[in-house]
């Protein structure tokens, strides 16, 4: 009797172990598939960038003569599409940083007023922001193109900055309003008793306490501006005023197909956002859950 009990117990233990190994193996297999799935297009990018010009069309699945030549060409601006590469890189930074600054300023002021000063009919403002947030940006591209001409801003970095700020601010208001709730109202009241005016409360109390949300939204706005293509392409037309995104897409018009140069440029262009993502992932994850990054 006891022998059979012990036997069945041993069997169930064995069964349990087998099951655990199977689960572990399945999870490893899935992990392997996910790595291949995620990395293949990036591998393709690197493969082309490290290939010499003739090697691009050899049809092999790894670079046959790996070389840094393409990167040298890009960095030294040694190709006619890349004559203004560093200037365009700078333009991208100007657009990104200015958009970030404006989004933070306009968004935090608006949500401070609605959330802390309790402006009458403030809900109108938040609803306006929510509505802007759900309009697909590409649907407004054609009117925007005309309107920027009317405002006299075509081929001017400001047109892109203002357009992207418009699309980034609603998200900022959304996040700031949410986060602002966690800051006790009593702080504002005691500051008021000490004689602070709303500007001082905003600048000395609200902003410092909001810093995690500011970092999250700032990163979001910077990346949105850096990665955006459609508006950059429509508004900026001369090589001197282009951002890297526009310059990069120019390669696609070329019949000569310097693919290796294009992919080398693409890798350099993708480095800053990657560094930002991994540097600020912790902060972004906090902001993420509330809405999402507009694509």
């Amino acid at each position, binding site marked *: 009797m006891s022998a059979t009990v012990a036997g069945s117990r041993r069997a169930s233990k064995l069964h349990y172990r087998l099951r655990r190994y199977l689960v572990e193996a399945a*999870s490893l297999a*899935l992990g392997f598939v*996910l*790595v291949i*799935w*995620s990395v*293949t297009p*990036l591998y*393709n*990018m690197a493969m082309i960038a490290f290939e010499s010009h003739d090697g*691009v069309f050899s*049809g092999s*699945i790894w670079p046959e003569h790996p070389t840094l030549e393409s990167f040298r060409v890009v960095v030294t601006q040694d190709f006619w599409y890349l004559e203004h590469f560093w200037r365009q890189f700078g333009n991208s930074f100007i657009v990104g940083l200015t958009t970030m600054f404006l989004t933070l300023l*306009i*968004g935090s*002021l*608006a949500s401070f007023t*609605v959330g802390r000063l*309790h*402006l009458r009919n403030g809900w109108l*403002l938040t609803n*306006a922001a*929510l*509505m*802007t947030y*759900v*309009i*697909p*940006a*590409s*649907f407004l*591209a*054609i*009117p*925007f*193109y005309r309107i920027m001409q009317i405002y006299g801003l075509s081929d001017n970095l400001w047109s892109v900055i*203002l357009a992207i700020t*418009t699309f980034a*601010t609603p998200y900022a208001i959304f996040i700031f309003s*949410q986060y602002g*709730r966690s800051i006790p109202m009593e702080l504002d009241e005691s500051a008021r008793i000490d004689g602070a*005016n*709303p500007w001082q409360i*905003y600048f000395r109390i609200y902003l410092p306490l909001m810093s995690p949300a500011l970092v999250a939204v700032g990163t979001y706005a910077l990346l949105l501006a850096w*990665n955006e*293509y*459609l508006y950059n392409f429509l508004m900026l037309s001369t090589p001197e005023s282009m951002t890297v995104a526009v310059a*990069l897409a120019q390669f*696609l018009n070329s019949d000569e197909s310097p693919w290796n140069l294009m*992919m080398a440029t*693409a890798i350099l*262009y993708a480095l800053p*956002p990657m560094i930002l*993502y991994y540097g600020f992932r912790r902060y972004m994850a906090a902001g993420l*859950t*509330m*809405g*999402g*990054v507009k*694509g």
Partner: protein
Amino acid sequence: MSSTQQVLGFDRSVAVGRLRRPSWRGRLQGSDTTWAIAFVVPYVAVFFVFVIYPVVYGLWLGSDPALYGLLFSDPTFLTTAINTLLFVAVGVNVKMFLAFLLSGYFMSRSWWVRSLLAIYLLPWALPALVVFTSIHFMLVTQWGLLDSLWRAVTGADGPLFMTSQWIAMTANIVAYIWKWMPFWTLIFLAARMAIPQDIYEAADIDGATGFKRLIYVTFPLLANVYLVSTVLSTVWTLGDFPTVYFVSSGAPARLTDVLATYGFREAFDFGYPRLGVAAMMSALPVLIPLVILLMRRVQMRGVQL
């Protein structure tokens, strides 16, 4: 993390905030009103100059009924409309469902799943232009990576992917899922982490484990996040531009265009901006109900934006 809790409906402070709000009304005094107005002026200005004006201008551009007759007599537009529906319906739903399942996988505590997450996020971290161009290059000629792989495995030349409408459309959808699945996985991951552990413990005692736990515990708790995310993603995907523009760029012969790329081409390649606007406005009958649903849903939950 409070955000997720609010979406999930665990956060009680919202209700408290609502009750408390009326007592703050009317506290705005003379000089405060001036400050408040000064503070909202920048946003209101941006809203009028860069949202209201373009929207009204766009509506005006697309207001001529004759445009729609012209649009619907264009066979390319009909293909475009079908493509858009296909792209959104398949792309969004497959992406959301897989993201939901994978978020469970990434809940695992083991160190290698955590480092895998960093790799898995790469597609989302990179600019759309860059990754979609790379995917385009993988497919477009007989020297692309996929063709080379095909040759290495089968020994014969691969098919020319971009000459088939269906392969090109599939490539668009797969590329779209590839790029955006990590982001929504993160959203679901955050939502799952906000579920209190004691709910699972209670379910465990009641005998709900494994598959049952997923269906009877996790999914009902995440249903609202899932719905809001899906609607939000649908709205954005209706206007998705870079995926199709860079992956298939409409090839072959504009048979894989979607609304955004069709409108773009009509406006800037062929010089009919009104037709382009009309094409995008043809999405309004789908877009408006979704936006209303979304705004209701978000407000009902007490996430007062």
